[in-house]
C-alpha cells in the first residue's frame, strides 16, 4: 500500500523552483532515505509532505489525505523529529512526553501507559524525572524519536536525526528506526551520513530540485557500478 503518493509536485518561490515535477511514492512500513545536496530542495519537499507548505502545482497525498486540501488531517497522522527541533530542554522526560501526548489529544491515562512502556523499552525509566537538558545527546535523540511516534502516526519524518551523534548511539538509533518499520510505521529520513543510506529500503537522491536517482541501495550500486552510496552520491551530485 502506498502511504505517500507524490505526483508532478512543483514548488516555486518567486522565480526560484525548489521542487521541479517530483514524482515518487513510499510504501507503508518502508524506510525511505531522502538524500540530496544542501540546497537541493529536500527541506521544501519535507515541508510540503508535512502539510506546512501548499504545493504550487501537482498532487501530494500523505496517509490518505491531500496535503493541499486537508493539511490538518495530514498533520494528525504524521510524526516529525529533527536535530534542531525536538524536545524542550527545561522540562523533565515525562513532562515532555505529556506535553506531546496532549497536543495529539491523547488522554492522561493513555499517555501514562505509553510513557511507561516507552521508557521501559528505551531503558530510560530511572531518568524519567530528570530535565531533558541533563541527558546525553544520544539519549535525547532516542527519546525524541520515541516521542515523535508516541501518537502512533502512520509516517514519521526524520530530518538529519543523527547529525553529530556518536557512532555507537547513531547505530542504536537506527535500530529504533528498524523497530518502528517492523511496527508498520513508515520512516522518511534525511541524512548526510552516507553509510546510513545503506540501511534504507529505498533511497532517492535529489539535486537542483529534481530526483535524479531512486531505487534500493543494492540496485543503485549495481546499476552505477559503485562500491558504496557515498561514491554514488559524490559522482551524481558533483
Amino acid at each position: 500500500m502506498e502511504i505517500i503518493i507524490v505526483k508532478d509536485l512543483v514548488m516555486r518561490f518567486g522565480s526560484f523552483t525548489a521542487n521541479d515535477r517530483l514524482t515518487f511514492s513510499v510504501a507503508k512500513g518502508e524506510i525511505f532515505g531522502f538524500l540530496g545536496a544542501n540546497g537541493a530542495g529536500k527541506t521544501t519537499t519535507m515541508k510540503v509532505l508535512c502539510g506546512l507548505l501548499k504545493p504550487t502545482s501537482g498532487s501530494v497525498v500523505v496517509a490518505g489525505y491531500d496535503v493541499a486540501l486537508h493539511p490538518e488531517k495530514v498533520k494528525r497522522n504524521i510524526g516529525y523529529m529533527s536535530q534542531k527541533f525536538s524536545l524542550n530542554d527545561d522540562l523533565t522526560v515525562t513532562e515532555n512526553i505529556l506535553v506531546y501526548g496532549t497536543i495529539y489529544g491523547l488522554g492522561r491515562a493513555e499517555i501514562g501507559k505509553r510513557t511507561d512502556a516507552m521508557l521501559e523499552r528505551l531503558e530510560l525509566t530511572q531518568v524519567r524525572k530528570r530535565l531533558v537538558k541533563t541527558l546525553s545527546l544520544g539519549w535525547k535523540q532516542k527519546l525524541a524519536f520515541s516521542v515523535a511516534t508516541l501518537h502512533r502516526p502512520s509516517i514519521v519524518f526524520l530530518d538529519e536525526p543523527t547529525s553529530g551523534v556518536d557512532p555507537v548511539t547513531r547505530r542504536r538509533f537506527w535500530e529504533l528506526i528498524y523497530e518502528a518499520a517492523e511496527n508498520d510505521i513508515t520512516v522518511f529520513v534525511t541524512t548526510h551520513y552516507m553509510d546510513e543510506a545503506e540501511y534504507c529500503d529505498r533511497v532517492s537522491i535529489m539535486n537542483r530540485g529534481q530526483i535524479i536517482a531512486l531505487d534500493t541501495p543494492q540496485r543503485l550500486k549495481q546499476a552505477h557500478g559503485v562500491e558504496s552510496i557515498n561514491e554514488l552520491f559524490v559522482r551524481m551530485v558533483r
Partner: protein
Amino acid sequence: MIKVRNICKSFGAVRALNDVSFEVRENELFGLIGPDGAGKSTLFHILISLMKPDSGDVALWGLDSVRDYRAIRKIIGYMPGKFSLYEDLTVEENLQFFASVFGVRVEENYRLIEDVYRHIAPFGKRPAGKLSGGMKQKLALSCALIHKPRLLVLDEPTTGVDAVSRKEFWDNLKTVRQAGVTAIVATPYMDEAALCDRIAFINNGHIFSVDTPQNIVKRTTQRIFAVRAANMRTLPALCRSLPGVMAAYSFGDAVHLAMNRHDAEAGEIRQQLICLACEKVEVKTVAPIIEDCFIITVKNQK
C-alpha cells in the same frame, strides 16, 4: 608547534575535559574526532585563549594561552561550530570586515584563499544568509584565513554539510596546509579522520589514541568481521548476543563484529548465526576502519 599539557576543565559538576594532553606539529592537519558533547568545543576555546583551563596549560609556539592571549589572537584563525558570520552583510563585506579586523587588505592574502573563495566569488554581492550550507562553510573558511594565520582552528566545519561539499572542503584544507598553515579540525564524521595527518579520539572529556590514522588502524588488535545475512535489520542485535562479542554494529551494507578474543574465526561465527536461524550468512574478516577503532577504543575505555 602546539603543546597541550594536562588540561582539566569543569562546568559546575560536569567534567568537560579530564587531563587532556597532546601535541600538534608544525604544518600538520590534525583531526580531533569525537561525538557532540565529547569536549571538542571546550578544548578549542581553551586552545585559542577564549577560556581559561582549571589546571594545565597550552603553549602555541611558546605563547601561553592565558598570559599571552593578545599575541595568540593575532596568529589564529577560528571558525566556530555554527555559522556565525553576518547574514545581513554580503559575501564581500564579510570578507572585507574580517580583513580589517586583522589589519590586512583582502588582496594581500588573496592567494591563500583563492582556491576556496573562487567558488563563492560569483556570489560576492549576495547576503551571506542566502548562501547554501556548503557555500557558507567556504565563506567562513575564507574569513578565518584572510589574515594568513599560523594556526587554523575549525570546530565541526562539515556538520550538516552534504557529502560532496564535505569532500570539496577537505580538498580546500589540503591546499591551505600546503601554504604552511597548521590546522586543527574537529569532526564527528569518522570517515574524515583518514584525511588528516594525525588524529586524536576524544570522548567524555578524555583524549586517547593520538597517532596517524594508519597507525591507529594498525594498532587495533581486534579482528573485525563483516557479517551479512538475509535479516540485516535484526542482525546487529543477534550478533551482540553471541558469546565473546565486544561490539556489533551496522556499517553500510554489513554488520561489523569485533570479538574480545583475538583468535576468533569467521567459520565459527557463521555457524553460531546459522544456529540462531539466520539465512544466507556470510562472514569475512575485514581491515578495521577508523570508526571501528573508535568504537573499540571507547569500549575498552569503559
